């Protein structure tokens, strides 16, 4: 049963959460009653391994509570959507879209985020070199300028959202974008591929940095995983 349903096309193609979101992403899928659902991915490091930039307490809550809740609610919405589609209940299908967007987006974004971070003793914070490094210099003049821009955009974002370093697949240019709430980067452009995302929802920093979001943004660069960003960049520009 498992092998046959693992690759079942029973699931609808519109829900992008089934397919890998970025190159190398392993957004674990599991089977529940024949429906392909999402699962909480494991972190590649301990909760406390990003200290002092991000506290272990925040990492634990962020992963085990917030991300888990998005996964749970996304799966619930998918199951309801499957039923609604089967019954031809268009009202229910439409009504479920916001829950899918919120929670599916939350799952997508956080799955990328955990890979964007790395402990310092495993290379976190080491600046990008070669291809991505040159692209940053070309499109932003310098890494410092890019960091400054992302920090400014992240600090100015009202309410909850994300700030992204994005690659435009069409033009092969890098750009900085923000999205509101849990909107994934593609909502800002179908050609945009996320290389780095920084969560600026208050839950991402409040216990440690309180209202001083700029301090969180300044410090997170010490644990940013540029290696992952380079891999995605190279794959998309190959």
């Amino acid at each position, binding site marked *: 049963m498992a092998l046959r349903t693992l690759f079942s096309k029973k699931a609808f193609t519109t829900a992008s959460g089934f397919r890998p979101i970025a190159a190398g992403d392993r957004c674990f899928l599991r089977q529940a009653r024949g429906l392909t659902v999402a699962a909480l991915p494991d972190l590649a490091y301990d909760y406390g391994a990003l200290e002092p930039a991000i506290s272990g307490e925040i990492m634990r*809550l962020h992963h085990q*509570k917030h991300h888990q809740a998005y996964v749970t609610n996304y799966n619930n919405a998918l199951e309801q959507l499957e039923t609604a589609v089967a019954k031809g209940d268009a009202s229910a299908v439409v009504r479920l879209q916001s829950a899918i967007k919120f929670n599916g987006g939350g799952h997508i974004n956080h799955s990328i985020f955990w890979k964007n971070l790395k402990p310092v003793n495993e290379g976190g914070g080491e600046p990008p070199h070669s291809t991505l490094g040159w692209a940053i210099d070309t499109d932003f003049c310098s890494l410092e300028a890019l960091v400054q821009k992302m920090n400014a955009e992240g600090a100015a974002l009202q309410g*909850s959202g994300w700030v992204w370093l994005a690659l435009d697949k069409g033009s092969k240019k890098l750009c900085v974008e923000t999205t509101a709430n849990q909107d994934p980067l593609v909502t800002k452009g179908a050609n945009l591929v996320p290389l780095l995302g920084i969560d600026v929802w*208050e*839950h991402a920093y409040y216990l440690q940095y309180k*209202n*001083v*979001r700029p301090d969180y943004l300044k410090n997170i660069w010490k644990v940013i995983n540029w290696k992952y960003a380079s891999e995605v960049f190279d794959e998309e520009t190959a």
Partner: protein
Amino acid sequence: MQHHTLSCCGGVRPSLPPPPLSFRWSKIKREGGRRLPRCARIAAQLELKPPPYSLSSLEPHMSRETLEYHWGRHHRAHVASLNNLIAGTDLDGMGLDEIVVVSYNKGNPLPLFVHAAQVWNHDFFWQSIKPGGGGRPSGRLMELIERDFGSFDRMLEEFKRAALTQFGSGWAWLVYKANRLDVGNAVNPCPSEKGNKLVVLKSPNAVNPIVWDYSPLLAIDVWEHAYYLDYENRRADYVSIFLEKLVSWEVVSDRLDVAIERAAERAREDETRRQEDDAAVTHSEAVEMYLDSDTDDSEAE
């Protein structure tokens, strides 16, 4: 997009003392083509109002630490940013309600809207709660709750649902909604107090219902900073405690009385205007008929 030096979440480090707020020198202002000296004007600007209780008196339901940050940092930073942005402009000296509505700009908000609205919202929020709050409302407020929601418990359920499904940052509200028509000079032809209702709403980020011409009665802040130190991710627990232990139904009731009176006054103004419009139409019709006729004697002649 304008980038403020003080963002909506405050760039103030905890170690700095709070800045003075009551009066400040306005920025250089052009007048008649001549720049006034920098110290020529004092603009009386908006103040950070303290809550009507001490910062530790809401414990254990809302900690002193939360109040110190929420009121002392977030709310304070919005007041400072707002004063900074309105200084020397047309909005300087306006009342806060007006600044909120004007800066909302019919859904295309100006950069200062977030600060104006968050100052308004937080003033309103601190007044909505009190030590030893909770319980049940009574009198006219309870009657209207039962009329418009079926029961008090059903209103609470709806309020909780709004608070929990406001995705991202925002607020949930109980408002008094007057049955007014939205179109320019149109007047409700059958005005009746029964058309006015209590309604539960939610709004994103800084938006508040006065921009839709509703009368807010109760608000709960569901930005994460409002509950994260005390409840972490458990927004549901925060909302339940807010309703069971903190909300001041007396304040909500007073606001309802004001809202009902305001709605009645506006209905009277509408009625007066409608009568004046009717009279104008009648008068002009009579003149028309008179001029058309060439057999009657004219009073004017």
